[in-house]
């Protein structure tokens, strides 16, 4: 499975290109609008072409990501996919309770994290050593919160709450909580 960092790089490049384009367009527009030019009446056709482009852009974004980001279809269909490992995790009083000090996963395995909360709404995220995020989900009390993830390279991850649950929530970090081994 492609690493989430690769997807983030792709997004960074795509959005940077877009921001440069839209800012250049607006700068050009601001310059040209103050200059004398031919009286221009925009044809309605131009409007409909523009609307079509917006529709294609809006819909194709989701089609492309669904077909290129592997965890998207896996998430939607996770009930039908058999996990190689299942970890039941409880959260209460601003603390994570893991089944072991470190959760070991082999490269290539699909791991299911079942997280429940006894009191507040929390978040559950895995983070790399450089603090970048691998993935996250919300942990809502009174519901089962599960996420399936396939680990394709060795690494060590910390667990951190990704949702505000009061000032104490900022301390909800467990270093070296997950280790992916060959």
């Amino acid at each position: 499975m492609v690493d989430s960092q690769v997807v983030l790089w792709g997004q960074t490049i795509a959005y940077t290109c877009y921001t440069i384009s839209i800012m250049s367009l607006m700068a050009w527009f601001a310059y040209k609008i103050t200059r004398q030019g031919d009286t221009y009446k925009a044809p309605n056709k131009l409007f409909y072409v523009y609307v079509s482009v917006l529709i294609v852009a809006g819909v194709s974004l989701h089609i492309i990501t669904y077909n290129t980001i592997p965890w998207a279809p896996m998430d939607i269909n996770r009930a039908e996919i058999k996990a190689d490992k299942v970890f039941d995790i409880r959260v209460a009083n601003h603390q994570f309770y893991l089944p072991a000090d470190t959760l070991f996963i082999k490269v290539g395995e699909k791991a299911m994290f079942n997280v429940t909360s006894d009191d507040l709404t929390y978040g559950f995220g895995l983070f790399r050593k450089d603090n970048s995020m691998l993935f996250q989900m919300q942990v809502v009390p009174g519901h089962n919160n599960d996420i399936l993830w396939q680990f394709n390279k060795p690494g060590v991850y910390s667990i951190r709450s990704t949702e505000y649950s009061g000032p104490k929530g900022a301390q909800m970090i467990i270093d070296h909580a997950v280790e992916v081994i060959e």
Partner: protein
Amino acid sequence: MKFIDIFLNGEGGLFKPKTLTPAQKLVLRFVVVSLVYYFFALFEGMIMRVFQVDPSFMPAEQYFGILTAHPLVGIFGSTYSLVFGAFLFLVPFLMKKPLWSIKLGNWTFILITAGTMVFWLAGFLTEYAPLYTLYWPLPADFTQFDPLGGAIFITGIAIVMVGTVFFVINIFKTISYTPEGWEKQPSKALLASALGLDAFTNLFKKKEKQKEHLISLPVAAVARGTVDVALNAGIILFTGVLILVYMVSYLMGIDLKHTAIDALLYKNWFWWGLDLIADGLVLIFVAGTWYLLAMLITGKKLFMQNIARAALLVELVVSWTVWSHHLMSDQAQPGILKILSGELVTAFELITQGLAFFITLVTLWSARPLKMTNPLKFLLGGLLGFGLAVPAGIMQADIGLNRILHNTQWIIGPHVHVAVLVGLTMTLYSAVYILFPIVTNGAKLYSQKLANVHFWCHLVGGIGMGAFMGMAGLHGMLRRTIYYNGEFNLYMVLAALSGCLLFIAFLAFFYNIVMSLGLNGVLQIFTPSKLDAKNTVPAES
């Protein structure tokens, strides 16, 4: 003129408060209070910027208290004040009929001003900090928060909502009522036109059979946005009462069970209501304001006017069905809602807001050459803000990308702050600059150089802050938490410097306005007008 003379009496002594009608005084009061609360939000923002670089700057509890108050003061105290004030003036002004009730307008002003101060003070003094998201049962978690402080905080919000309801009543009554001495007005037809029902049916009729619009497009935009204002006020009031029940019970010694409320259902309810602001009235009001500004700046009709009207109605319906994009990371949320409401309907916002963007640009283009006035340059800034922020939002409303973006600084930076600070605020500044001579009866702006400083510092500061927060988010920095070891300090220092530019922009603008009106003039805005309330602007002008 000497400095002290200008400071007291305004540039050229042109601002004469005694010539102001009650409607003009009302809008100016809203503007002054809006700027004061904008300063609160800005100052709080800067305090939080310092904290994000150095968490030893203040206790965490205080930081989260500020983080709770900051968006609410910005939305209700500043933006609601400015928008409500502007629309309570513009609707009667554009319809050439008096505001239905100046008294009710003044009550809206008083309640929003007082309500904001109440919840701000309660948050400041008691550090009540469930954040604006209020995820159940956090707002009623009395092991962390003082129930009395929370009760006062929620009461403040409720007071703002009552003022909001008064605004809604005033707008719809103004559209539909018959002023004294006028021929009987077709109330139902006026309301139907305002809500866009005729525009929608016109789309399916031949040109010769199409109904004539009784309401101008900008007023129709105000009316449609006001529908979301009303629905949102209902949701917030209901939610506030629910939280208050838990607080008051606790204070009386009765501990109600938190589990009686389903946290996920509550979250759906909350986001459905909140998106009536974020994805509803903001986008509709902004589109309507763009259209009005484009028409005022060019003196021309709007390009594709009928489509623009219908799009505003579509936008209203879209705003009722997009809330699930906030629950893409909630695994118990049904997948079908994530795909339909979260992804597909949300993508419609790219279309509706994209239409408004395009229609405004084409209308401006049709009138070139235009002079680069303050309203025009701020309008272009506002358009750019939404041009940047809407696609950033569409990206995070995606099942795949949300998994690695949710609750990071990406959401609050390139999406929220760029949309609010650059898109919304610059649009509102454009309206302020264009309305300034109308609501002040011809007062002159003190300094164009300061207006230019205001523009460039605000634009660069707003985009810069959003960009650096976004970069931090893409590297994993979460929102609503604390990094004690300087993990993202480079980005946070750069975001703070961008914040300084926003601060300079505001000071330049505020100083410019005070010097234009004079301190005496600003104070006299708050005294009653002796002119006839039937006139929105003085009869002779």
